């Protein structure tokens, strides 16, 4: 079959791009012809549907304006040469085709599951955000009717489609495989349980603040933050502030930190002793180096809010490392079984620190949970992912 993968091109090569690439190659391996129809986000017209954009909209609701521009572009994609369309990020689900399968990983999240904290964190004015949200949800409600079937990227994402759009009967779950799991599941697990890892693209929803706060309760352990991202400067600064002597850790409000409502930073930043922090920031590292970091880690801490999937948690598990996630961690809570292969705790620095402390104090517990984690990770194969994908294709072609 000719499968057309429809995708916005953000000019980045992130985790989702890797998943879509792999899906394309796997489909080709199975004898399908795969073509890609991409909409370059950078080249979109600035006035969607030919309506002049007022300054207020361009300034205060630009995500919604861009989204509408993308919608217009996806509606114009000619899919007549494809037998099946596989759409990806929103709003590519609006692409018209009678046999349209949507590989649905998330909504435009700031208008859905992230909406309330986004406004609470002061990123948008409540009234403005509400207007834009209404517009986005109106078009979504209509065009989410286009795909004949949805493959939700996780149980969490399937739940969101149900919660926000009332879609339940056209949905099954797709569990992306992991190249890291394939490459390392057979490795001998690292014998030592040393540093505490936090691996992510550190954007605001990832809540890396909690990791830094937790590490300050564990001064004898090294915390390593891997990855880059727009929230990292804020987190580094927080790390420096919390490393200053005499900080009352229990007085640090985690929700306030994340929602940008904590005390303004102290003016005298330079007074802190250089190198006093037990948290190290590596930025992005090559795969081989990341594997080394996973191998002897004590555990992975994944503090993200309503994570779509939790691929790094699965990868850490493949190395036999327990994972500490939070009760509002979304997809992460489907991967981590509390007390079995890690811990699911309240979203606070203190609660995360207590869970990490239990593992640090009891290497046997860490080892047991680590081997349970490996078993869990073993199910995240591309074999299974492609079975789920092919079942989805059958659903839309039957």
């Amino acid at each position: 079959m000719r499968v057309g993968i429809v995708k916005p091109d953000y000019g980045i090569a992130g985790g989702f791009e890797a998943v879509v690439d792999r899906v394309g190659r796997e489909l080709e391996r199975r004898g399908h012809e795969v073509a890609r129809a991409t909409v370059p986000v950078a080249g979109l017209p600035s006035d969607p549907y030919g309506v002049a954009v007022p300054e207020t909209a361009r300034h205060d609701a630009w995500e919604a304006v861009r989204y509408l521009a993308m919608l217009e572009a996806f509606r114009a994609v000619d899919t007549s040469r494809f037998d099946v369309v596989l759409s990806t990020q929103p709003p590519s689900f609006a692409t018209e085709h009678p046999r349209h399968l949507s590989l649905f990983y998330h909504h435009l999240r700031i208008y859905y599951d992230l909406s309330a904290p986004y406004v609470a964190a002061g990123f948008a004015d409540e009234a403005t955000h509400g207007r834009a949200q209404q517009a986005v949800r109106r078009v979504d409600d209509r065009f989410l009717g286009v795909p004949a079937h949805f493959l939700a990227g996780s149980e969490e994402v399937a739940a969101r489609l149900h919660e926000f759009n009332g879609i339940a009967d056209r949905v099954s779950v797709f569990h992306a495989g992991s190249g890291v799991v394939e490459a390392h599941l057979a490795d001998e697990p690292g014998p030592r349980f040393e540093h505490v890892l936090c691996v992510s693209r550190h954007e605001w929803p990832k809540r890396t603040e909690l990791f830094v706060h937790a590490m300050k309760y564990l001064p004898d352990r090294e915390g390593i933050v891997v990855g880059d991202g727009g929230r990292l400067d804020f987190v580094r600064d927080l790390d420096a502030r919390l490393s200053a002597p005499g900080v009352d850790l229990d007085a640090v409000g985690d929700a306030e930190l994340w929602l940008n409502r904590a005390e303004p930073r102290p003016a005298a930043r330079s007074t802190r002793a250089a190198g006093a922090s037990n948290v190290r920031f590596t930025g992005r590292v090559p795969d081989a180096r990341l594997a080394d970091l996973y191998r002897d880690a004590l555990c992975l801490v994944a503090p993200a809010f309503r994570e779509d999937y939790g691929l790094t948690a699965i990868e850490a598990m493949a190395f036999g490392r327990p994972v500490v996630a939070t009760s509002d961690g979304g997809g992460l809570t489907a991967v981590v079984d509390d007390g079995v292969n890690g811990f699911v705790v309240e979203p606070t620095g203190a609660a995360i620190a207590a869970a990490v402390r239990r593992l640090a104090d009891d290497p046997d517990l860490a080892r047991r949970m680590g081997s349970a984690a490996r078993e869990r990770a073993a199910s995240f194969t591309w074999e299974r992912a492609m079975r789920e994908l092919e079942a989805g294709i059958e659903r839309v072609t039957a």
Partner: protein
Amino acid sequence: MTGGDATGAGRPMPQTDELAEYLDAVVERALADEPRRNRPRPPDDASTPVGSGVPAARNLAYRAARKAYHLALRPQMGVNEELRRGVAALQGEQAAARVEIATLRDQLLALQGEVAGLELGLAQLHATTERIAAALEKVGVEVPGASEERLDAMYAAFEEEYRGTSDDITRALEFYLPYLEASPVDVQPVVDIGSGRGEWLRLLGSRGWKAVGIEVNKAFVDECRAAGLTVELADGLAWLGSAPPASVGAISAFHLVEHLELRRLVDLLDNALRALRPGGLLILETPNATNLAVGAANFYLDPTHLRPVHPDFLAFLARHCGFVQVEVKFLHPVDGRPDGAGPGDHDAPTPADQMAERVRWALAGPQDYALIARRPAAG
């Protein structure tokens, strides 16, 4: 469903009213696109698989109707018109560039004659110098100036110090493996022109690929052979020129093209195309001079670099010489961020961020780029 249950509708304010009016207008237009009524419907019996075997007549009809629909309605969008104009302008530029290249080729042919004459003179001079040196050595006078071998050793040491450790390079080279793995035709043997310290050959060997290095620097050749790698001591261009047609699966050259004059660069591409079998892969990596720090300073750290090769020009040249599926990939950003990092799914930058991104690109962005191209599958 559409109510802002999380944020509420908020108090009406003049700006939000303007915003609401605008959004309403766009959303109405978006919703008025009623595809299932306006667009041709697919055949009712959708169970007929389309495209497998001979398509059913009604599928053809459906496709034809879709085509007609697009032809009829698309020009309204203006976008297409703009695209068409853009393509026409590009075609014009391309034609102009072709003429320029043709002129350059003529000039080069003329220069070639002159160069040949000079080379002959130089060779004679060389022979004379060596005769004199030998005579001087006989009478016990030390000859000043560095020998070829001394220079080779110096350059090997220089690479060791400045190009990064072998481990760093090996990790960076892993980027290319998926291209070999994804190739529909056999990419073996991989011939690496200017194989240097052999990191690529070693990586290929460890993954089970058959690979041969071609290297002129004897110090490097000795080092690689001692490590069990297959390397020939030869000039890469000469080697390629004498390789049987369609005898090679993939050709790579890392940090080579910036050492070549234009004529030799064109030769490299011509000979590579000939030596590759149909569908074979070409990989060229070279410094990215659109990163200002590279273009202004770091490029010239290596005294044997001639001039930076602009990614657009190299891509153009590859296409001009007959390669297809020509891609440019920017690599090795100073700050380690993903190449060409831009707005994410829900954290895209403001205009100020975009400006910052441009500055980042110019100062802390990719230091190298790769040109990846293929010989056409047929012919």
